């Protein structure tokens, strides 16, 4: 009996029609495609995108040149030079991240004792030439200033977990 039934089923294209029913059903469902530049996938406060250096509310940069981030970076993407300022505090004279080397692991942010280096939500940044892969201190601080509200809100949202 079974071979006969199989034969009839195969002759009637049963499984193909069932497959077509699935695709047909999906034809009338809501499309899940996002209209990319305007619509983006949701991002969590933990997102690890482009780096930024932050400042204290009084405008002083946070980074104290402790070089923890430089030491922890698995890809050796961070380069820091430091000096002592006239007021006796240690600051960086050079803070560079090589974005081609960086693997966006987030360890630098995890290690920073003063929440200075952070990874922001920015995930589409572009470069026009190879040299631009190394971003320096000015650019990092600039990104930090520009997105400070977002950065602070994200850190606050994630603070209970860290």
């Amino acid at each position: 009996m079974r071979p006969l039934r199989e034969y009839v089923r195969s002759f009637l294209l049963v499984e193909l029609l069932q497959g077509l029913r699935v695709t047909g059903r999906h034809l009338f469902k809501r499309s899940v495609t996002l209209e990319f530049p305007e619509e983006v996938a949701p991002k969590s406060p933990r997102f690890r995108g482009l780096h930024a250096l932050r400042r204290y509310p009084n405008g002083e940069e946070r980074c104290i040149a402790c070089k923890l981030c430089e030491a922890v970076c698995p890809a050796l993407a961070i380069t820091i030079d430091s000096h002592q300022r006239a007021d006796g505090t240690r600051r960086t004279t050079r803070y560079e991240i090589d974005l081609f080397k960086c693997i966006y692991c987030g360890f630098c942010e995890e290690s920073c004792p003063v929440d200075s280096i952070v990874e922001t939500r920015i995930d589409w940044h572009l470069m026009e030439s190879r040299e631009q892969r190394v971003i320096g201190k000015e650019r990092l601080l600039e990104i930090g200033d520009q997105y400070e509200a977002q950065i602070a809100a994200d850190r606050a949202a994630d603070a209970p977990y860290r």
Partner: protein
Amino acid sequence: MAEFQSYTLNFGPQHPAAHGVLRLILEMEGETITRADPHVGLLHRGTEKLAESKPYNQSIGYMDRLDYMAMMCNEHGYVLAIEKLLGIEPPLRAQYIRVMMDEVTRILNHLLWLGTHGLDVGAMTAFLYTFREREDLIDVYEAVSGARMHAAYYRPGGVYRDLPERMPKYEPTPYRGEKELREMNRAREGSVLDFLDDFCHRFPACIDDYETLLTENRIWKQRLVDVCVVGPERAKALGFTGPMLRGSGVAWDLRKKQPYEVYDRLDFDVPVGTNGDCYDRYLVRMEELRQSTRIINQCVDWLRANPGPVRLDDPKVSPPSREEMKDDMESLIHHFKLFTEGYCTPPGEVYAAVEAPKGEFGAYIVSDGANKPYRLKIRPPCYIHLSAMDEMIRGHMLADVVTLIGSLDVVFGEVDR
């Protein structure tokens, strides 16, 4: 005219069906393959050597990039080996989180495998549907770890952070009405656990859809049934693990046979095939999708009911919380010490393995008592599966190469390391 004898065909390394950078030298007799010679190493990044030069924790991120379809499972194997070396055990909640994320990873991997395998063999539609579900799980990854793929989330002694209480939502845009936005954010109102719970409820219906499209489909069957058969004894002799071995009818699953973390407390079945052909391996993986859903469901229930720490409270291994670090001098010293030097392990050798989606993923560490491994050896499942390629493909047609590569589920990050 001269009789046309055998000839050699170069397949890959940039062939879309080569799943990365596999280069095959095929010796053909007409359409039939008499010998297949996989050339590997085009994606070699020297992960094992790299790990010898940095403290243990800093290599976690590189583990993600081995099998980049099963990110957290690789981390798990590595972290487990370090824990074994140190003789520590993470808190129970961390173990449940790891198991849950491992199963999420397994679903991610199998969905990608199903989509691309279908695509290679000629079934476009399943690919579109599997990527829809993958997106949901990748959002879970992102909410939990901060990265959509390369999570760097597991740590020796637990996981980096607890699961977040809020799932990120879609923002309003001119393209979506309020009602549609509400529908899109419906499952995202609660925590990650709520989202996963909802996912586990709708996912079985999605698997049914994929199965309707493929399982009985005559073309699918013609391409898969009785292709590249491996018997159980031969599969064991070739060192197969994971779905490749289970497809041949050997019920070997590390989650059952050598339970690590909390797998012995969870209720799930291990599917086993009978024929050892590509079709059975397909069926085994489909059933694993269902079983993983079951495991996630149980983990979600447990995690909801049992809050607690997710990282070992041992400042010699796991860094103190940020609050402590900022208040307390001793914690600050631990923090600095851990992020510069790391921790030293006792001298010795360990091997720890997990059941990654593709098979047994193991890490073998030799330590000389320093803060970095003296030698790290990674046991990738795909490399071993790929080395059986020649034996499996002999006597088959050229078109079956694509089926077999899909069925082996190779990923080159892992083969080449």
